């Protein structure tokens, strides 16, 4: 591709890659699998099993590849964004149509599940969406594409017969279990995050005042962060079990080596590092002239903290909470091993039974929760941070989030 002087016709490489991935996945990998019952792998079927709408999906992929590579940069991104929104809906429709036609002659425990090709296509569309979203400046275009995608996917799911899909059938069977698991998961994460904030924010403030507290708190929290989550639960088992047998009254409150209490203790410990560190950085990063002005006007210590230092550090403090939330949503899955409940139960049960649908039923809500937490805390930051400083300390915020996100996979992998 020749770069022109103005860069008008340069290829949107990211969007093109996403569209090519989607196209390749749709054409070469099995779109759905037909399985005699919920635990066997079953045989693959191509996208053509969906009929005409399947062909439409393939054509849409080709269209997106073409647009990403040939369209001029001025209108490319919004167009691609709308294409991706439509593509999501068409794919959901295709999955339902394929499942409907494959199951048309059966009545027993047969199932049709989402195949590798369909997952690949979803991933490809997600990449296109990401690239196109970044390139679309207009908020109206962004919102209407989101609305179109949401309505389209919902309509396609209802009208296209997504209820035939294995995952949806599994959900119908397990919905009560799933929703209570989601509630339990939120309870664990909320507990860990709540205690983490109650301890971490004051500790971060103290760390900004006293050097030794800073060294001790951030050092300790850093060490805690390196302990694999499963090992942490093992380490907590003995002292908490001993505590419960020494003071049996504590058992009433769930204290013991197993259950929610040790899980929340572990999650609190993991939440500490991002919260303490970001609070410390936020408070100690406040311009010394601000502190001088506040003191010079007669503020006492608490007034200075609450009226000047905390409001100025708020973007970073909320950023720390966001990182901690995403982190603990992942780690909470592991606490299923010590009978704490949560979405991890579904994942591990599904893995044990080789029931892929059950595993997905546990894993997908976790992804959704993590994304919602991320979006929620960003929204909270916009709502709470004063317009006078909004968007200023971005660089330091980015430092923390990369450090925090880097440790997230460790928790999930343990």
């Amino acid at each position, binding site marked *: 591709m020749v770069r022109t002087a103005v860069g008008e016709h340069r290829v949107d490489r990211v969007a093109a890659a996403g569209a090519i991935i989607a196209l390749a996945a749709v054409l070469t990998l099995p779109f759905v699998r037909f399985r005699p019952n919920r635990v066997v792998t079953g045989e693959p079927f191509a996208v053509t099993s969906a009929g005409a709408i399947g062909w439409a999906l393939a054509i849409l992929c080709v269209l997106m590849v073409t647009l990403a590579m040939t369209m001029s940069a001025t209108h490319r991104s919004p167009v691609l964004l709308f294409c991706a929104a439509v593509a999501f809906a068409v794919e959901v429709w295709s999955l339902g149509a394929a499942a409907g036609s494959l199951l048309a002659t059966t009545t027993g425990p047969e199932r049709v599940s989402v195949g590798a090709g369909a997952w690949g296509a979803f991933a490809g569309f997600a990449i296109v969406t990401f690239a196109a979203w970044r390139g679309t400046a207009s908020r109206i275009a962004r919102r209407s594409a989101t609305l179109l995608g949401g309505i389209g996917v919902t309509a396609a799911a209802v009208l296209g017969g997504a209820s035939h899909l294995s995952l949806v059938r599994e959900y119908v069977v397990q919905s009560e279990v799933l929703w209570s698991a989601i509630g339990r998961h939120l309870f664990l994460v909320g507990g860990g995050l709540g205690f983490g904030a109650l301890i971490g924010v004051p500790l971060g403030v103290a760390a900004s005042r006293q050097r030794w507290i800073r060294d001790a708190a951030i050092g300790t929290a850093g060490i805690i962060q390196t302990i694999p989550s499963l090992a942490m639960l093992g380490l907590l088992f003995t002292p908490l079990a001993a505590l419960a047998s020494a003071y049996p009254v504590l058992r009433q409150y769930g204290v013991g080596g197993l259950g929610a209490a040790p899980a929340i203790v572990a999650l609190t410990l993991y939440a500490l590092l991002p919260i303490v560190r970001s609070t410390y950085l936020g408070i100690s990063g406040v311009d010394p002239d601000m502190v001088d002005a506040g003191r010079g006007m007669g503020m006492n210590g608490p007034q200075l903290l609450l009226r000047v230092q905390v409001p*100025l550090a708020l973007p970073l403090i909320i950023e720390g909470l966001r990182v901690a939330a995403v982190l603990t949503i992942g780690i909470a899955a592991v606490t299923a091993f010590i009978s704490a409940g949560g979405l991890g139960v579904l994942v591990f049960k599904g893995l044990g039974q080789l029931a892929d649908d059950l595993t997905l039923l546990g894993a997908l809500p976790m992804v959704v929760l993590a994304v919602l937490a991320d979006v929620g805390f960003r929204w909270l930051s916009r709502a709470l941070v004063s317009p006078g400083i909004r968007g200023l300390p971005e660089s330091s915020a980015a430092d923390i989030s990369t450090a925090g996100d880097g440790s997230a996979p460790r928790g999930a992998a343990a």
Partner: protein
Amino acid sequence: MIRLEGVSKLYGESSAVSRLSLEVSAGEVCVLVGPSGCGKTTTLRMINRLVEPTEGKIYVGGRDIQSVRPEELRRHIGYAIQSVGLFPHLTVAVNIAVVPRLLGWDAARTSERVGQLLSLVGLPPEYAEKYPRQLSGGEAQRVGVARALAADPPVLLMDEPFGAVDPLTRERLQGEFARIQKELRKTVVFVTHDVDEAIRLADRIAVLRDGQLQQHASPEEILDSPANKFVHDFMGADRALKRLGRVRVSDFMRTGVPAVVLEEMGAAGGCVDAPEGQRYVYATDSRGALRGWFDCAGADAGEGLTEVEWRGGSVRFDATLREALSMMLGLGVRAVPVTDSSGVLLGEVALRDIEDAMTNGGAR
């Protein structure tokens, strides 16, 4: 109003301020000047206990400040600093209201006060809802001054409050500060390293060097008879010119200068009725506003010039003799007209008046 008695501040072995005694009377502007590191900011910060003296006593309003809680003391002393120190997360109104809120004023009284202060420092009322990052440097400095004045404290401490703006804005802010001070008569301790600023604003100047007071006197006295070579050198070689910066044109202007109203002027020109020895005759419109002048030097007796000369040369009554002199040198003339703020001719100031001012010590 403020009295320092033998005040010293030691940081380890080195002393920032040593055995400093100073008295600032009520309603007076005392400017602390000196090179950087001379202890002027430390001295200022000891007055509101942001720095605690190692030895010595400080009294504000007759009370030993050690007997007052620091927060209580500071709420009754206005404080403005060089970087302005406005809180970026608060609006202008809330910034100004910081001390009133600490003192527990009710909302109505506070917002009324904010309105008064904005108009006092010359900012429109809609600035109340702006955030500091929406202000220019000069506007931010004005808000800083308004904030220091918010609770109407009798004493103001100002640490290079006009330090962070361009020279033109600084001069305007200095002029406004002088106007506000004339009205409010606060007791002000003002730190600067800018000698011109000190001379312009001070009632009394305290020159510091290495934490020691070199001289504490009126600007005229310091310029006329510096106590030692350091003060002499620090004030600079243009001391005579700096003296002129203290003297207002209005104190030396001659009134009743010959002027003709252009609309009523006869065909013979403006120099016809000029008294002997009067080189310039001013031209005004019927309202009295200056329009220009006739230079009668080249005119033979009885024959006037009709051409009005105008080179933009006039000074306002509240300008300094230094500015008037600068204008004369720039225009190559020996006198300039003086106007009021609306441009109406009041009189003129001539080079020989300035010479008198210099030789007579500028008795005002």
